[in-house]
């Protein structure tokens, strides 16, 4: 094979099949996908959750992850945030002509690893190739379906007066890790994105507590946006103790340098939840 993506890879012919067989299937292999039918067939009963997200992050490789890991974790997390156990994902890739195959492999390897960690299978996929300049290297869209156990009712609208807000870790890591790679900002640090699947954490939480009302992973817009969403959806006010919000020193320093407030900076591996006080 050549070393970069050509338009022909997207035309549906021999090169397209080769691309799928050599660069996608080996990383995603599972019985449903391997059939290579027009749709994947599965059975599920109960309350299902369904979500979709597009990923256009730039740069596509960043400390702690890449667009592939993000695409799997983001959608897995959206399902987990409604208390669903993620079952299957679909993956659609729009690739810019000229994209290096070796980078595509790296990303597919990430996707494989993230899917294994989250215990989901990617059972449907699609690739398209566009002319150079018509996409910024690689755009990925993932959709996901998950199943919600009986009795579990988690929603941004469920917060009640008296609930406490809990945060699973430090904030701002992802946004700052991404920014540290952007040209022109010229700072370097060892900080990594916190990009991670949260479904196992959530299922452990749900096993231990039936009093969780809302769950959300603060992504774009940071913690502040998530808390605003809870407040708006649930029609409640929230009092936040600034000193209690955990922020790494490096994130604070980078925010000072850039004139940002950590509570508005993106995350990809934290969840905040509100639950009844005991």
């Amino acid at each position, binding site marked *: 094979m050549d070393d970069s993506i050509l338009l022909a890879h997207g035309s549906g012919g021999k090169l397209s099949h080769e691309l799928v067989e050599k660069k996608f299937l080996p990383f995603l292999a599972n019985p449903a996908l391997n059939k290579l039918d027009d749709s994947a067939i599965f059975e599920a009963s109960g309350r299902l959750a369904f979500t979709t997200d597009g990923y256009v992050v730039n740069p596509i490789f960043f400390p702690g992850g890449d667009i592939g890991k993000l695409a799997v974790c983001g959608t897995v997390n959206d399902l987990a945030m409604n208390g669903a156990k993620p079952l299957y994902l679909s993956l659609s890739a729009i690739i810019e002509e000229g994209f290096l195959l070796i980078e595509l492999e790296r990303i597919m390897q990430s996707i494989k690893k993230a899917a294994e960690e989250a215990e989901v299978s990617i059972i449907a996929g699609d690739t398209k190739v566009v002319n150079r300049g018509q996409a910024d290297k690689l755009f990925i869209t993932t959709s996901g379906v998950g199943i919600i156990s009986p009795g579990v009712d988690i929603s941004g609208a469920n917060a009640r007066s008296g609930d406490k807000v809990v945060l699973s870790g430090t904030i701002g890591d992802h946004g700052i890790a991404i920014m*540290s790679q952007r040209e022109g900002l*010229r*700072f*370097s*640090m060892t900080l990594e994105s916190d990009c991670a699947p949260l479904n196992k954490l959530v299922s452990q939480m749900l096993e231990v507590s039936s009093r969780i009302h809302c769950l959300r992973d603060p992504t774009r817009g940071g913690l502040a946006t998530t808390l605003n969403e809870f407040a708006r959806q649930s029609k409640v006010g929230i009092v936040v103790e600034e000193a209690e919000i955990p922020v790494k*020193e*490096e994130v604070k*320093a980078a925010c000072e*340098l850039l004139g940002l407030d950590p509570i508005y900076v993106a995350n990809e591996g934290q969840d905040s939840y509100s639950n009844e006080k005991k």
Partner: protein
Amino acid sequence: MCLAIPVRIVSIDGNEAETEIAGVSRRVSIAFTPEAKVGDYVLLHTGYAIGVIDEAEAEETLKLLEEIASLSEVH
């Protein structure tokens, strides 16, 4: 636009210096602070060190603030 933050000089290379603040590294111009030495803290504004922080004065200020605070506790 008045944003300037204190960073510590780790090494100097002619008109430029490698600086550090809480684990974040940045290369800055010391064109306006040629007197800066390794170990000094400088005020960083849009890529330039605009002044060297006077550590003795910083100590004095903190001492003054501590005194004020302890006097107010008496009441």
